[in-house]
């Protein structure tokens, strides 16, 4: 918009206008003294719907839910001091799972920074190690470049969170704006090196026992179709990380499901035998690899990642390809022969036959696997599934028939209890046409339980499946398995009445324990629009199996 008559705006109005121009239509946050000018400007926006979280961490996870469901950077806001510190966990979580987030925090006026002013904390310093980049804005004029840059950085390359800390006097400072900057969008990624792609294709064509290893980068890149096409063309048995679930339908003939600590025996055993590992947008996380020296010990490695620092970080790759994984896969495809691989595919089939994922109780909705299956029976692939962190998360990862990229929103890297419900609210706000199901536990839900009132207020279509085993289940399981059954601080003595808790927050609730036909009750609950809490007791002794002991090689699985 050239040659406009300059108009005068304050910093807060500039922020709101830039968010509108960026396409932000929903954001989550909590106001406080140091961010009031921005909230005043926000109150005049007819485009942006502000969702009032009840804890800044909840607001941060709502923004994450929006970003994870859509892939577009989402925004959360908090005031200075405790507002900002409360947001940090959600930001760190976004960093570890590479989620594009723009966090905007108020700060005390510039002249008071460094004086230990009321609600002053070094938000910039605190957020350095948990953001992709961060800003402390020193003038209203600077906002015109910083806000679009924040979105560009969050979305470019490997996505991640960006924090913009804005002192209150900068929000109030008046400046003339002649021309608005263009919204920030992702920078183009340099194309993968063609020669490396050729060598990778040759290595895939020559391999006798290859496995395709998909990570969250495949979802971020929108490369699921290309990944499935590569698997089908090159006949590659395929494993997925926790973050990649949904990239290939789990019931695809080539899918071996999730690898690692709670992967099926057949999956980890197949990896143990492979002679070529093709890692795509995966970072060899310790929960996926187990003891690194024992991970795919016979395999050569092709590693494709958008972040060059991931190449050779944990495992040295024989061919390391930096670039967008979707672009790399599309370059690879035409160079792939269609080998028979009959012996290897037969070997994998026999491993699947002999060592499948065992899901005891799958037909009984009063068991963990059975409950998850019963929920899945009521839904189609359009539903979005979020989880909290713990046993329920691993059971759902193992047993839910995930078939769609971005269907599955879970806290992978940081493993943050309290993620699931606010993330589900965010996902439902971003995609109101979907049913969003949050699987949670009695430990996790209490870590952001206050957001139940936000769910009621926004009337989001979120169904919370509360798997209640009266314990911190995964801690209980580890103490049982690895600490001589010395159960300590993992069994809850007091137990809230979750039905009344939900109803007290304005969310209808049902107790599956009281239902004579739980499957029928679930069907009704899941097809009724609006928020709902569904409580189901499960036995405390239930374990997630198989399990690779922490520090052991993946083939040393217990149980399952």
């Amino acid at each position: 918009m050239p040659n406009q008559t300059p108009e005068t705006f304050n910093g807060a109005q500039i922020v709101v206008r830039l968010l509108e121009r960026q396409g932000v239509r929903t954001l989550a946050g909590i106001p406080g003294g140091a961010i009031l000018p921005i909230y005043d400007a926000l109150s005049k926006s007819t485009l942006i719907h502000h969702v009032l979280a009840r804890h800044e961490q909840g607001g941060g996870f709502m923004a994450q839910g929006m970003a994870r469901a859509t892939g577009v950077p989402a925004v959360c806001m908090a005031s200075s001091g405790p507002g900002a510190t409360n947001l940090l966990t959600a930001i760190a979580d976004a960093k570890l799972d590479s989620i594009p987030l723009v966090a905007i925090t108020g700060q005390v006026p510039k002249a008071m920074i460094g004086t230990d002013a009321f609600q002053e904390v070094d938000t910039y310093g605190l957020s350095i190690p948990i953001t992709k980049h961060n800003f402390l804005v020193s003038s209203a004029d600077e906002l015109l470049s910083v806000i679009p840059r924040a979105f560009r950085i969050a979305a470019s390359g490997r996505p991640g969170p960006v924090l913009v800390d804005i002192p209150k006097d900068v929000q109030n400072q008046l400046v003339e704006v002649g021309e608005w900057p263009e919204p920030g969008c992702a920078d183009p990624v340099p194309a993968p090196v063609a020669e490396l792609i050729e060598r990778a294709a040759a290595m895939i064509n020559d391999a006798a026992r290859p496995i395709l290893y998909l990570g969250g980068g495949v979802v971020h890149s929108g490369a699921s179709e290309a990944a499935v096409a590569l698997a089908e063309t090159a006949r590659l048995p395929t494993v997925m990380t926790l973050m990649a679930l949904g990239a290939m339908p789990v019931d695809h003939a080539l899918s071996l499901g999730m690898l690692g600590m709670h992967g099926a025996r057949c999956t980890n055993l197949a990896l143990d035998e492979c002679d070529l590992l093709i890692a795509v947008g995966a970072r060899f996380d310790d929960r996926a690899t187990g003891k690194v020296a024992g991970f795919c010990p016979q395999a050569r490695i092709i590693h494709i990642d958008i972040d060059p620092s991931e190449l050779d970080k944990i495992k040295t790759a024989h061919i390391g390809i930096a670039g967008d994984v979707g672009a790399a896969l599309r370059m690879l495809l035409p160079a792939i022969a269609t080998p028979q691989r009959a012996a290897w595919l037969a070997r994998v089939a026999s491993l699947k036959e002999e060592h499948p994922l065992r899901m005891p109780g799958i037909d009984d909705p009063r068991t963990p696997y059975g409950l998850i299956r019963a929920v899945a029976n009521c839904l189609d692939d359009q539903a979005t599934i979020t989880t909290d962190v713990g046993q329920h998360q691993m059971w759902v990862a193992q047993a839910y028939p995930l078939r769609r990229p971005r269907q599955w929103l879970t806290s992978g890297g940081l493993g943050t209890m309290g993620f699931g419900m606010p993330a589900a609210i965010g996902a439902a706000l971003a995609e109101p046409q979907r049913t969003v199901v949050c699987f949670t536990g009695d430990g996790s839900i209490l870590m952001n339980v206050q957001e139940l009132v936000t769910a009621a207020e926004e009337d989001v279509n979120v169904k919370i499946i509360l798997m209640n085993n009266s314990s911190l289940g995964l801690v209980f399981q580890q103490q049982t398995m690895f600490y001589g059954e010395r159960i300590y601080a993992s069994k809850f003595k007091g137990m809230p009445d979750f039905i009344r808790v939900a109803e007290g927050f304005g969310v209808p609730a049902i107790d599956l324990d009281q239902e004579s036909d739980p499957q029928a009750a679930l069907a009704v609950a899941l097809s009724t629009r609006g928020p709902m809490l569904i409580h189901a007791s499960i036995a405390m002794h239930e374990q997630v199996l198989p399990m690779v002991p922490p520090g052991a090689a993946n083939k040393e699985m217990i149980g399952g």
Partner: protein
Amino acid sequence: MNSISGTENQALSRTVLELDVNNHPGVMSHVVGLFSRRSYNVEGILVMPVGNGETSRIWLLVNEDERLDQMVKQVEKLEDVLAVHRHGAEHEVFVRLEEFFL
């Protein structure tokens, strides 16, 4: 990527890293934070603005170990780092300063 013991540390040779960075408060924090979170000691630091002061040059003296390649990749990812060059320990920038540390 395990940290190394003190005796191993002394046996290692050193590397000089030259970083061109944007000159504003916080850049130094971003750079050294990458080292400190990995318990990777920075033996020497030298920073001065370059030209009109829009950018600065940071010289780092570090022990060379197997994590150095990863460190350099992490430093290169920083938004405010424009370029990274590696030099051998014989680079004179820190040698010339030794008289101030007697």
